Structures are given as structure tokens and as C-alpha cells.
């Protein structure tokens, strides 16, 4: 029980008449990665918004470290929970350092600015994510992948217990996607951080699992978690067929003596029977 950083109990939400999800329950432990996958529009982002306090659950409750989300002020929430958006809209060319420093906002009051200590934490966060060399660059002039790492560094500067990511790699190229995944995996291993991540790529769950991270996968569809368990158990041909209507194949491969990878590849779209 103490181990649960985030616990969601019997959560339901609707936009007006339209029910998005109902009666979802799960919890996230320390140093655990929870991947949520499901078809477009199944309500992943809405669920994350309810945990972030952007939206309010219709029924059920969200507990952040034993405390009900309704009784947590935004600055208290930011101390525990950080957020990495899907796409960050860049308007003003702030420097990378300015952006990461904003992770310290919850510690300052409205009339003050971050102090030396906050600066140091900011530098550490950028170093951990590997973007310290970009610190003084305008963040409008770096690549999308680097920008996403800036968002991760900003989340890290909050020194949270859990980072919530909404499809953090959805618009990134081949290398940048891996860069973000590697960074997240390192953070979870080396820090006392959990991750809740909505993603379109089932293989992300395998990636974390084969990297030795405690990984849970939730398959979201039809307003609920159809399956929840370890990727090895539930990420299989049957479930993918059920959720996406796609025929697929799980491939296991030993790269060398120590490295093992598992991937699920789509084969064809299931033709409607009868």
C-alpha cells in the first residue's frame, strides 16, 4: 500500500453524454513504468488529464501518495507529479535553461523567482538528460527530439515521484524516439521515479521490460482496461487482434549473449468475418 505512488480507484469520466471510460482501477509502484496503449480516441489522454488534475473524474478517485487529488493544490501536486506533453507548442524562443528552470515554479511564490538552489537542480536535470550543452540555445532552434528531452528535463527538475507522458515520441523520427526512450529508461533505473506513459507503440512496453524495468501494460479499449499485466504476458497476438483488429506476430531475438529483444510486428488488418 505504501508503495503506491499513484492509485486510481473506479474512475469514470464522460464528456456530457459521451462516456469516455468507466470503472478503471490501477496503481503504480515506485520505479515502475505503466504503459497505456489503445486505439486513437480510446480515452488515454483524458485519463492522464484526470490524474494531472486538468480534468475532474466523474466518479471514483485518484490518490497521489495516499492523498486524494481533490485535496491537493496545484503546487503540491507538481511536487509529486510531473508532465511531459505530446507536442509542446513553442512560441517564444526561451533558452533551454529558462524552460527547464520552470520545473521549479511550484517551489516559488508568485512574487519571487527561482534561487541559486533551483539553478543547481536545473543544471543537474539537464545533465542527467544529456542536454546541458544546449542550455543557452533558444529552444525553438533545436530538434523535436531534443525539445522532448527538454520537456523531460523540466519534469525532472520538479523532482517528482512520477512523470506522466502523453505519447512523448509520437512525432519523433527513428533516432529521436530511441533517444527519448533510453533517457526515460535511465531515469527510472537511476532515480526513484515512476512513469505513466500513453503510447501508440506496443513495442515501447517490451523495450522497458527487456531493459530490466518493472513494466506494466494496460490495453485500453471500450471505455476500460481490457487487460492489464506484464507485457510478456498480455502483449500477444490475441490481444492485439482484439484491441486493434490487426494480425500480428511476436518476434524474439537474441542480439548477442547478453542482449535479448522482443518485438511485436503488425502483419495485416483482420478482415471482417462473415
Amino acid at each position: 500500500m505504501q508503495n503506491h505512488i499513484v492509485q486510481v480507484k473506479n474512475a469514470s469520466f464522460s464528456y456530457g453524454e459521451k462516456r469516455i471510460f468507466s470503472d478503471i482501477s490501477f496503481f503504480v509502484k515506485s520505479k515502475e513504468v505503466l504503459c497505456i496503449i489503445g486505439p486513437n480516441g480510446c480515452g488515454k489522454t483524458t485519463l492522464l488529464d484526470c490524474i494531472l488534475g486538468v480534468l475532474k473524474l466523474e466518479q471514483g478517485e485518484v490518490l497521489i501518495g495516499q492523498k486524494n487529488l481533490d485535496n491537493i493544490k496545484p503546487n503540491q501536486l507538481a511536487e509529486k507529479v510531473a508532465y511531459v506533453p505530446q507536442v509542446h507548442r513553442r512560441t517564444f524562443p526561451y533558452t533551454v535553461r529558462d524552460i527547464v528552470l520552470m520545473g521549479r515554479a511550484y517551489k516559488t511564490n508568485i512574487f519571487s523567482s527561482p534561487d541559486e538552489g533551483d539553478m543547481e537542480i536545473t543544471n543537474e536535470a539537464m545533465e542527467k538528460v544529456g542536454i546541458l550543452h544546449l542550455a543557452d540555445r533558444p529552444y525553438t532552434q533545436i530538434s523535436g527530439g531534443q525539445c522532448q528531452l527538454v520537456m523531460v528535463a523540466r519534469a525532472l527538475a520538479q523532482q517528482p515521484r512520477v512523470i506522466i507522458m502523453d505519447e512523448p515520441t509520437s512525432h519523433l523520427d527513428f533516432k529521436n524516439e530511441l533517444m527519448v526512450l533510453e533517457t526515460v529508461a535511465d531515469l527510472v533505473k537511476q532515480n526513484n521515479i515512476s512513469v505513466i506513459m500513453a503510447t501508440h507503440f506496443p513495442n515501447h512496453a517490451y523495450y522497458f521490460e527487456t531493459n530490466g524495468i518493472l513494466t506494466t501494460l494496460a490495453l485500453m479499449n471500450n471505455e476500460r482496461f481490457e487487460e492489464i499485466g506484464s507485457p510478456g504476458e498480455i502483449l500477444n497476438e490475441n490481444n492485439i487482434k482484439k484491441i486493434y483488429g490487426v494480425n500480428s506476430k511476436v518476434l524474439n531475438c537474441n542480439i548477442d549473449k547478453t542482449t535479448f529483444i522482443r518485438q511485436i510486428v503488425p502483419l495485416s488488418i483482420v478482415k471482417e468475418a462473415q
Partner: protein
Amino acid sequence: MKKKILYISIFISPIILAFITLFIGRYPVPIGDMPKILTYPFLRYGSEINDTYYAIIWGIRMPRAVLAALAGASLAVSGAAFQGLFHNPLVNSGMLGVSSGAGFGAALAILLFNNFSYYIYFFALLFGGLAVLLSYTIGRIYKTTPTIMLVLGGVIVSSMFSALVSFIKYVADPYNKLPAITFWLMGSFASVGRRDIFIGVPPMVLGIVGLILIRWRINVLSMGDREAHTLGINTNMEKLIAIGFATLSTAGAVCVGGTIGWIGLIIPHIGRMIVGNDNKALIPISCALGASFLVIIDDIARTLTGGEIPIGILTSLVGGPFFVYLLKKTKGRGW
């Protein structure tokens, strides 16, 4: 080091420019008499001081320089704050309708009263505040204040008040009232005196100081509602505070100087070219630049021709080409 000198000179330039302004004007005040006139209120020695000179310096030029500087600072700072708040570099201090509301208030006061000078302040402040309140209420239609709704609220309210101003112009007496309304709307410091200090300075100073105090928070608010919330900020509350300070300072500026456009838009961008986008540096530098800019423009307005040129005309005429020049020179660096 070179940068430091530049910053320091930007910050002291409003004071120097305001001081120089005391020597500029159509009525010649002998330079030799200036030390005596300037120190008279503090030292009060002898009676050999010329009353006319004294009245010109302390009763007219000094209040005018102070008010122009503060108005420039107010408009620039609230423009910078709104650009951050609405994460849009193209908005200015009048975004939520404060200028058009104040303009309507002033026009109404001129229409209704024969001796309107005092009523103008009251009505301009009242309707400027009311316009922002209306925009804010429209923006709160969904109980929170999403930025897009606030912008939309501002556009709706501004256009309604502009229409009302047109209506007042339409019904106003064309020989007496209409010119007064038109001149007021073009903006001018021509008629300001000491009493304007007491009316205009408190809201402007309060608003400027408030925005300077919350300047770092504007960075965070410029990340957009969702991200600002997840960074630990009560976005609705802090937006309201920022809007409150910006409205105070802008309304103060508008009620002494009329509607002066353009400053709230370009001064923050000039500031960005110098110090970058961090509002921690941008807000103070915009404050100093806005003050200097409007003092200079006001000097031009009162000396260029025999009469007064409305300052709103000059800010755009001088400001536009100057801005293009800066864009070309800095190649939009830091932008």
C-alpha cells in the same frame, strides 16, 4: 562588460531624458536660471525666481515628462505581460479591451458634461476596467479561463466599445464636442498638469510594480494553461492577478494620455532583441525602453510644429519605421 554598460544606460536613460525634457519647449527659459528653478522647491532661498519660469518647469514640463515616462512604461510592461500571458507575440496592452473601453468612457464624458476635464479620468478608468471585466467574464464562460476564450472575449468587447465610440461621435455636436473626442482618442499629453500626477501615477506605479514582481511567473504562464497547471501554478488565479495589474497600469496611462497605440506591441519586441525572452529581464527592460520612447516621442510632439501633434499619430509614424530598421539590423535575433 559591454552588455552591462548597455543595460545600465538603458535603465538610467528615462531619468536623463526626462531631465533634458525640462529644457525643451517653445517658451524660452534661460538656461542660467535653471539650477535655481530646479532646486527652489527644496531650498527655497530668496525670491529672485521668475514665477512664469517656475510655473513652466514645475507646473507643466515636469508633470508632463513624468507622466509620459510612466505611461510609456505602463503600456510597454503590460504589453509584454499580455504577450506572455496569451502566448502570442502579436497582442498588445489593449488586448482585453481596456483602451477601447477607456476611449468610450472619455468620449461619453465629453458628450455628457460641459466642463468635462475631471469626468474624463473617472469615466475612462471606469469603462476601461469594465471592458476588461466583461472580456474576462466572457472568457470564463466555461468556468475556467482558457486563453483562446479570453482573446475572443477581448475582441468582442473591443469591437463593441469601438462601435459605441462611433455612435457617440455620430451624435456629438460637430463644432465643439466632436473635435474634443477625436483629439482625445488620438492621444496627447498637451493638457496635463500637476493634478494629473495625483490621478495617473498611483494606478500606473501600482500596475508596473505588480507586473515587475510577478515577471517570472509570466514565463510559466506563457507555457499554456495545461503545462502551467502541471508545473504547479493556479493558472486561473495567477492570470487574474496579472490581468489586474496590466489593466491598472494601462488604464492609468490611457486616462492621462488618451489611447496611444503601438507601444505595447513594439517595445517588448525591441526588449527581446536586447535581452532575450526571459520575462525576468524582459519586463524591466521594456519598462525602461517604453519610458524613454514615449518621453522622446512626446518631445517631438510638442516641438516639431507650432501646435501639438497628437502623440498617438507619432508613436505609429515614428515607431513603425524604427521597428523595421531594428528588425533589419538585428535580423530578428533572439526572436
